[in-house]
């Protein structure tokens, strides 16, 4: 019994040890936020127009296989993340192809990045909220989009 309890404690400690990493991450994010508020006035004038992203979301949400979609854009790039309805997931590849084609026709001047991955969906949603709230400039958004693109292309 005693061994069992010790074992449980060790496992709990291990799990708690993992959980701390998140806090550290958040702290470092808070630091960047503070820097941004310092030069608030300049940051707002750079605010990137998100109307193209909104249009893209409208078009994609109109498809019957798509459950939800979010998008973020800069002047040259458009990042779209969507979720497919359960039974339509069998045709995932075809749906991605269709959406890519549709978006390319609608926004020929933008480089389009499409992903159906849940993680990319969450991250894009986070990025969109951040843009709406803090008003990031183009360079920062581009950097984030690049990061997400790299993440979505990872295979292992």
């Amino acid at each position: 019994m005693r061994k069992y309890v010790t074992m449980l404690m060790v496992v709990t400690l291990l799990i708690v040890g993992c959980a701390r990493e998140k806090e550290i991450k958040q702290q470092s994010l808070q630091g960047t936020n503070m820097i941004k508020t310092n030069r608030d006035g300049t940051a707002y004038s750079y605010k990137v127009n998100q109307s193209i992203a909104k249009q893209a979301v409208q078009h994609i949400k109109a498809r019957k296989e798509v459950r939800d979609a979010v998008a973020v854009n800069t002047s040259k790039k458009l990042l779209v993340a969507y979720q497919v309805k359960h039974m339509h997931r069998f045709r995932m590849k075809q749906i991605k192809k269709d959406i890519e084609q549709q978006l390319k026709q609608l926004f020929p001047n933008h480089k389009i990045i499409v992903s159906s991955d849940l993680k990319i969906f969450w991250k894009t949603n986070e990025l969109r909220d951040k843009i709406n709230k803090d008003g990031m400039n183009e360079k920062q958004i581009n950097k984030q989009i690049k990061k997400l693109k790299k993440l979505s292309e990872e295979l292992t």
Partner: protein
Amino acid sequence: MANEKRKKLTPVQQEYHLFEKERETKRPVVKNCIRAFFVGGLICVIGQAISYFYMYFFDFTEQTVGNPTVATMVFLAMIFTGLGVYDRIAQFAGAGSSVPVTGFGNAVISAAIEHRTEGFVLGVGGNMFKLAGSVILFGTFAAFVVALIKTIAVKWGGLG
């Protein structure tokens, strides 16, 4: 027993066979299936929760989250086997606990525990992959065959 074999039996043996068949306890196939379905499903739910955990707190995508999830599930199954909990679950659920990847961890550790008395090299080391070895062998072979079929279908059949 197969029909052809039964014809070779003497009349007395045949009579005994019928006698025995009447009295033996029937295998509860349906009940076993239902139990396996629910416990196997529960294990999969836990796996899904772990993969969501990895996706939410770390930089894993749906594509890449499989590896750490499988590793965690196997690790958990190994710990539970060592504590003697997994055997109880397996007794209740049967195939439901051995078909998911957790069954692999169980197969490795239970063989290691069983042969512990024979020493570390010839006992634990030699027998650890007694059952899991065939899983690896036939898994790799099956993957090879499937990949071969896919390659042929794509190259010549124009599929995909």
